[in-house]
């Protein structure tokens, strides 16, 4: 990668670029979903793709999330590499039988004699005033299903590299795109590149405390870290990038170094992926290095409310991360 070919584009453009490059490179890759063609996708991700690839490979569908997921599953079973877009992650509830009982199971259930290489692109998260049925973060459900992988990129660079890796992966991969990240800009190489799925990244180095965060919580954690740096608290931010498979090593190494860890996610705290992260850390050698209990910051146990103030209060904001991290940095001192 040379710097000449790297330019600033948005997360949304990075997702599109990954799709376009993979569809140019492999005729078995196609996009299927509601309004992905003429409309360009509900959020505009596939804008312009119909013109290049035509109706067959940028395939508009009826409003039928179960059949869309089935169409992707069956095509994957036949050796194609479908990318299905669900308009909102919430609508995966309607696709779940195909994803959980078919796509995730077929390989194992049939004795390892087939594979299901497909990607499920799911715009997730709150912050758009879309209320309870268009704002969820359902990653923990899918992480608990053997046979599915779950990826949640936090930057344009990661979005492109991880999506290309997800499309080339020979398994069903749930690819979470946070709606608030779509407009985030960052440096992205023009060339095609892969980020291995099981590779966490240290997004900011620090000595005093580790924040493990993914998706929208990464930019929020980085902003919180800058604020706390002014108070002399030096924070390390680790982004797992893929929740399953999980790069445990990078997370554990960071906690061994700092001795304190705050886990942050948007999904409701109870039963959230943070519990799994906490258990992984507690069961590792990092346990001996902990100077304070493992702390978690997650969404409230409420459906996402409509009102702006209520919606903000339902999930961790920068100031919540600042408060929690500051308290943890002092804990036991």
């Amino acid at each position, binding site marked *: 990668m040379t710097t000449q070919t790297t330019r600033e584009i948005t997360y949304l453009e990075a997702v599109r670029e990954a799709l376009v490059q993979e569809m140019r490179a492999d005729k078995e890759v*196609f996009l299927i979903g509601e309004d992905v063609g003429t409309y360009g996708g509900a959020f505009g991700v596939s804008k312009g793709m119909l013109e290049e690839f035509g109706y*067959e490979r940028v395939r508009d*569908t*009826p409003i*039928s*999330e*179960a*059949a869309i*997921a*089935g*169409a*992707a*599953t*069956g*095509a*994957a*079973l*036949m*050796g*194609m590499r*479908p990318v299905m877009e669900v308009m909102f992650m919430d609508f995966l509830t309607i696709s779940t*039988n*195909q994803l959980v*009982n*078919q796509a995730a199971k*077929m*390989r*194992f*259930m*049939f*004795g*390892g*004699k*087939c*594979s*299901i*290489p497909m990607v499920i692109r799911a715009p997730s998260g709150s912050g758009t005033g879309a209320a309870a049925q268009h704002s969820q973060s359902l990653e923990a459900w899918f992480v608990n299903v*053997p*046979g599915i*992988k779950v990826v949640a990129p936090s930057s344009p660079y990661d979005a492109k590299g991880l999506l290309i890796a997800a499309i080339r992966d*020979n*398994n069903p991969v749930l690819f979470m795109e946070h709606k608030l990240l779509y407009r985030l800009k960052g440096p992205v190489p023009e060339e095609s590149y892969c980020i291995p799925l099981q590779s966490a990244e240290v997004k900011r180095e620090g000595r005093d405390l580790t924040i493990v965060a993914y998706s929208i919580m990464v930019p929020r954690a980085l902003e919180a870290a800058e604020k706390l740096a002014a108070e002399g608290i030096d924070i390390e931010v680790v982004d797992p990038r893929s929740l399953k498979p999980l790069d445990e090593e990078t997370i554990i190494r960071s906690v061994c170094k700092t001795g304190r860890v705050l886990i942050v996610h948007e999904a409701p705290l109870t039963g959230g992926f943070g519990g799994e992260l906490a258990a992984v850390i507690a069961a590792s050698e990092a346990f001996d290095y902990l100077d304070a209990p493992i702390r978690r910051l997650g969404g409230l146990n409420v459906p996402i409310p409509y009102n702006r103030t209520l919606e903000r209060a339902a999930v961790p904001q920068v100031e919540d991360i600042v408060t929690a991290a500051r308290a943890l940095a002092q804990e036991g001192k």
Partner: protein
Amino acid sequence: MTVVIPEVDEVGTSSSENLLVELPREKLAWMLQRMCEIRYFEEKAEDLYIRGLVHGTMHLSIGQEAGSVGSIATLRPEDLIIHHHRGHGHTIAKGANLTTMMAEFLGRESGYCRGRGGSMHIADIPGGNLGATGVVGGGIPTAVGIALALQMHRSEQILLSYFGDGATNEGEFHESLNMASTWKLPLVFICDNNQYGMSMHVSKVMNIENISTRAASYGIPGKTVDGNDVLAVYEAVLEADERARSGEGPSLIDCLSYRWRGHSKSDRNLYRTAQEIDEWKHKCPIRRFKKVLVDAAVMTTDEVEALDQAAKTAVDRAAEEALTFPEPSPENMEDEVYAS
């Protein structure tokens, strides 16, 4: 128009008697032998279960053999099927090795799914059997995707998608038939209508007489056939195959039959009478096909009984051999979940 299924003794010939002339004798013999193999396989499966040699449950299609054989007999070798939990019939008709199939039923490493799937999930991917789904209607959306891939690859292959009467009340049925008909996908939807979704008779769960009338919602042909007449099934499915293969899209064939056994092994038949079951035994599709073949002088009684005996011997041998195969090892099981 309601299809009336006659008792074997009342049967003159098949409503599709022209096929007795048009189809090669070997093909007709193949059909009878597969039907007998299905019957004997399932009787053997039941016997092994009663003897405590089987770990899980099973769903028997005894009485419905004409549906799976009559439909799959229309296919070219490279064509595909996807089916459901009551799937022994489709699997045998698609050409499964009886020993490998029995090994899967017994949960052995050398079974089709290496003992991971069992009776409810037998798949033979190289053989074009893309697997049985245990969630009612769950295979239908997947069928849409398989057929979509065939269409996008400009393949001449077609797919038969099987499901039961109960599945036609699932949302996935509607989504899938709508999508497949809109896109004119190369498949045939076949309802193995045995009249009961576990305990519920079709008349208690839908406000229509014939499931095939649902085809009208999708602008595709729909036909209810006598599912105990293997030749009638053949004729209806062949017509649907040709439509699928020529790019005109799917059809819905409602194959009316009856399951003699309970839904699964827990069934005590509280929802139907012994008399009803007995009446249907007098409509046995195998005895009926034998009678048609003999009456039309396609075969002698001795010849049909020889085919029957060959099927019984093949199933007995398969069970005997499969029982000697080793169980799978739990070692490294987690490594098999994901493809590399």
